[in-house]
């Protein structure tokens, strides 16, 4: 391999393929092939028609799928509303603190995802400081709680994937030519209009990428629902995990997983059409 990396190998038409071979092979064997075996598992139930897993997916677990998408859609919207202003401040208003702020945004990545979610559990606990304050402000009834509610799960999902929303938006805002925003301000004269007509449209690729990077992992996540919610907040990830690892009903588990993947792929393509961005990479 060492020789192919040098300039001389440029003339060898096989060089790029040799260079990629190990990594691509790994992805094919351990990512593409498993998707095929997943589908095969989903239709290989014994003593039942091939579509049995799918029928049970939609009859018994449709509500979990719907809830997962509802929660993650909500979390994505909240993350967009919270993340956009911060990305804007980082790109246009932070001056020499830009890199410092960037560091702060990626800081949560350095503490384990699970431990962070447990920290939310600690904060939202009955009798904890947040519940206490809300009760004191009469925003919650005296016996009110946050843990085991939809809000706790959506809040946790929003929190965990927020950096994935902020960073792509920041990158697309950062790329905008400053002369363009100045020209817009000169011409439109109102900063609000300059934002609506120039800055926001130019940041759409970042909004697109950020929304996907939040929505996709959120819809498959089950840690937030498990740690911050009750069985009433259970999401599809828990069901898949449970069927695969505890119940061992593989055809059903594989069908659930396959349906989740298919719906997300369709949603991604539809979203790309709406926003008019064909580039994913």
């Amino acid at each position, binding site marked *: 391999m060492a020789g192919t990396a040098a300039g001389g190998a440029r003339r060898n038409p096989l060089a790029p393929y040799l260079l990629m071979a190990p990594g691509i092979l790994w992805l094919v064997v351990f990512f593409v092939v498993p998707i095929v075996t997943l589908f095969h598992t989903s239709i290989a139930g014994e003593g039942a028609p091939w579509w049995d897993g799918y029928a049970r997916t939609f009859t018994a677990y449709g509500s979990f799928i719907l809830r997962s998408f509802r929660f993650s859609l909500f979390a994505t919207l909240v993350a967009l509303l919270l993340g956009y202003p911060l990305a804007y*401040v980082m790109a246009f208003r932070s001056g020499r603190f830009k890199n410092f702020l960037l560091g702060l945004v990626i800081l949560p990545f350095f503490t384990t995802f699970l431990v962070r979610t447990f*920290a939310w559990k600690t904060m939202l606990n009955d009798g904890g400081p947040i519940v206490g304050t809300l009760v004191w402000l009469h925003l919650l009834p005296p016996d009110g709680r946050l843990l085991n509610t939809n809000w706790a799960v959506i809040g946790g999902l929003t929190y965990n994937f927020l950096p994935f929303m902020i960073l792509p938006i920041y990158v697309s805002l950062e790329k905008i030519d400053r002369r363009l925003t100045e020209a817009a301000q000169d011409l439109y004269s109102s900063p609000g209009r300059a934002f609506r007509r120039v800055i926001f449209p130019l940041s759409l690729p970042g909004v697109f990428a950020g929304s996907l990077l939040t929505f996709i992992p959120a819809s498959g996540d089950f840690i937030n629902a498990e740690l911050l919610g009750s069985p009433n907040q259970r999401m599809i990830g828990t069901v898949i995990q449970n069927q695969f690892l505890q119940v061992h009903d593989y055809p059903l588990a594989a069908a659930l997983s396959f349906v989740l993947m298919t719906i997300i792929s369709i949603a991604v393509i539809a979203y790309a059409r709406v926003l008019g961005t064909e580039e994913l990479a």
Partner: protein
Amino acid sequence: MSAPGTGSHMRRGRWRGWVLDVTGGLVLLYLFLPIFVIVLYSFNRPEGKFNFVWKSFSLDAWRDPFKYAPLVDAMKLSLKVASISTLVATLFGTMIALALCRYKFRGSGAVGLLLVLPLTTPEVVLGSSLLSLFLDLNAHMGFATIVIAHIMFSVSYVALTVRARIRGFDWTLEEAAMDLGATPLRVITKVTLPLIAPGIVAAAMLSFALSLDDFIITLFNSGSEVTYPLYVYGARRAAFPPQINVLATTILVSSLLLLGVTVLWQQRRLRQALVSPGP
């Protein structure tokens, strides 16, 4: 920074800017709150087995961070998995990035798509499909299957990170070195590697962090092995000692130190490059 213009616009611009800054600050606070709690609770002396309610300040957990052998073993396993998978994924991913950046070839679009797909597939699907493959093969689930899974999801991240960092490099430098009589090995060590090193280091750090943090994919492919995140997940049922927070805080602080050192190293390289151009 705020909008220039007439007086009333200026005032409105300033007001708007103030609202933006405060919103941004509050969002940062939201990102920070749990981290603050994690560090704070490493100094807690909990009542009972679960470190979820603040009781009193104590250094006990910091004095005896390795008190729980299963926790230490889980951490060791996680570090081992992260080291091996980072090494392999960084090598494979960098090779893909080099191929994509330096050659025009048929199928490069398909390769780009193949790299993005694992990132746009929920972890629960990645984990469960890999499990269905291992079940089909009757493979023994354990250390090897965890490492295989971690390399799989890291390769994409590495390839995309390195590619983003080395796009638009001046590869004629390599040819120049060859023309001047450098051997291929010398070209790699003296020209290619120094050029792409910062991208590789960033990608390797990302890969290591992802591996250390992964829970969902690992859960499906770990057999009876227990990594650090799996231990933490199990801890919610048996006992959640403050030592978990001590380790989390240690990871945080050492990553910050590592990041600081890397930034300093890159700034030094930049200064050197400015003072004496050329390899």
